[in-house]
């Protein structure tokens, strides 16, 4: 019985990490779907969201406000506003001028932007790990076999629910709203969409902004869940989320979610049953294996090579 509980605990851990990867992965997948570009700076946007949320929370604490829902909402709003603005600015400065050129150019530009943002926050806020206050403590406990209790913390539940809600809203948005339709059109054929009168520049900016907003949500959640922020953690998270996006099929939003969950669970299981040291090796090996047998990812659309 204890083994079963242990398995479920690691599963819950994995699904939690996976949901956060999924939230960040959506940003990557949307941008790739629309302009075919890997936005390396996305991980930094996530990190900036986390920092902004922390600044907001600290500010509110100084003012003496203690009502949790208010703190969360204000922190969320601040993080979303700053991250979205950052996402918009990054697109205008580093990606729009080089759109349409040889594939490597936007890539290098993105990497340069990523380095710039990391160091921007590093210089502004210092390079040390800064603690994130634990705002939501407590958990549900289940079962009790030989002293091992399954614990499902409120934070973990919040993360699941938030991810699901975001995913649902986004899917509805893409499939039902006008802008969503325009997004789909632009990702199918940019030139044609332009000819049909869609303002592709605005749609592309909107894509970046949406992705950044989701990353900000992830930043707030993960800051609260893990407990500290530092200027470099966005990069690692971004790499993992990117792996998740490719795993699920880059360009596909449900793929990002699926990829994120699979990656999270794989990491957690490796860590729980083998050794925490090699969990990253497992993630990347999983990616390579999937790409070898299904090059476009799990839910990706097979690319037809047009001559």
């Amino acid at each position, binding site marked *: 019985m204890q083994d079963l509980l242990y398995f479920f605990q690691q599963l819950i851990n994995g699904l939690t990490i996976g949901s956060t990867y999924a939230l960040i992965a959506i940003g990557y997948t949307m941008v790739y779907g629309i302009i075919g570009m890997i936005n390396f700076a996305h991980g930094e946007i996530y990190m900036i969201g986390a920092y902004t949320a922390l600044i907001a929370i600290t500010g509110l604490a100084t003012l003496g406000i203690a009502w949790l829902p208010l703190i969360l909402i204000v922190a969320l709003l601040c993080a979303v506003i700053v991250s979205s603005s950052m996402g918009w600015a990054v697109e205008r400065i580093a990606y729009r001028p080089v759109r349409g050129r040889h594939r490597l150019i936007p890539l290098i530009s993105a990497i340069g932007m990523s380095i710039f943002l990391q160091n921007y926050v590093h210089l502004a806020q210092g390079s*040390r790990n*800064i*603690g994130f206050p634990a705002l939501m403590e407590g958990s549900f*406990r289940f079962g009790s076999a030989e002293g091992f209790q399954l614990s499902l913390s409120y934070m973990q539940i919040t993360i699941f629910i938030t991810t699901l809600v975001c995913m649902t809203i986004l899917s509805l948005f893409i499939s039902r709203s006008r802008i969503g339709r325009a997004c789909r059109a632009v990702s199918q054929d940019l030139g044609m969409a332009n000819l049909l009168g869609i303002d592709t520049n605005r749609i592309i900016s909107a894509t970046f902004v949406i992705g950044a907003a989701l990353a900000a949500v992830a930043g707030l959640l993960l800051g609260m869940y893990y407990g500290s922020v530092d200027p470099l*953690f966005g990069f690692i998270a971004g790499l993992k989320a990117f792996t998740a996006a490719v795993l699920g099929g880059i360009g596909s939003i449900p793929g990002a979610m699926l990829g994120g969950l699979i990656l999270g669970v794989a990491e957690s299981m490796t860590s729980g049953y083998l050794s925490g040291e090699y969990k990253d090796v497992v993630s990347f090996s999983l990616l390579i294996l999937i790409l070898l047998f299904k090059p476009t990812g799990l839910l990706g659309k097979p690319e037809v090579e047009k001559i």
Partner: protein
Amino acid sequence: MNTSVKKLVTAVSASVALMAAGQAAAEIKIGIAGPMTGPVAQYGDMQFSGSRMAIERINAAGGVMGEELVAVEVDDVCDPKQAVTVANRLVNEGVQYVVGHLCSSSTQPASDIYEDEGILMITPASTSPEITQRGYELVFRTIGLDSMQGPVAGNYIAAQKPERVAVVHDKQQYGEGIATAVRDTLKDAGIEIAMFEGITAGDKDFSSLVTKIKQADVDYVYYGGYHPELGLILRQARQADVDAKFMGPEGVGNKDINTIAGDAAEGLLVTLPPAFDQKEENQELVAAFAEKGEDPSGPFVLPSYTAVQLIAEGIEMADSKDPFKVASALRSGTFETPIGTVQYDKAGDLKAFEFVVYEWHADGSKTPAN
């Protein structure tokens, strides 16, 4: 094509000019190498604070052999690769004495370079025994060794008679070294080690590790490493209802761990050097720090001060600036310093140094544990 030749020439001349500008006369350069930035910059602050104070006071008292001490500060970010880079830079600048590095994993490779180039190095914080086990002449410490610190922690835990103990480390020289020492001490005392695992420094998510610890149902968890990771582990462990007591080496005894772990830091056990700033002989020095607005209670402040003092006194005693002669002087002499009476053995280790077990509190204070 002229442009590339021109660029090369300009670059080279500029470098030469910079090099030449660095040479000044009638001063003794002391390199201070430690983390100015990065996750453990907290400890670097202590090192720089102590060293700077010593240099100021020695210069105010007339310098060494009539010459002023000048600090050459470099940042190694507690990373071995950076440490090698800054060590090379110090060599290129003609520095002959170094107070540093802080992290054992940085000191080890840097000391290879210093020994090869004939530069005296005194580390105020690196506790890994390997650093002085290679027969080097020019390597010294003003801190104890993990081969002493480990048993202090291990014996303390063993005395509490736990059923099972988990040992975790961050795979770096310092963390893994002391975790191994503790594990061996516990094994000798017959205590069951439920797990011995490594985590990667810089990780944020320890939920799997915490679940594993929970399943192992241990009474004590010893963590070898630094406070950024232990802070997170503590916090995530409390959230998951792990009720074991945690213990760590001096690399975790730092107020920053409270900002990360919050209330979970209450009851953390830490082995630290004794509180030098509370000794009566040092009160005047403590007041000098207070005047500058700096805090001398950090574990590495006074050892760094002592390191600079030893270099100065060593030069005077040897009546020469040759690092080899200064090294022999250090080995043969007895010195009165803020960390007590200092005498060195052949390897460059202090003949006497004790570590004390403290209990850390949620407000950042510490009390000796019984």
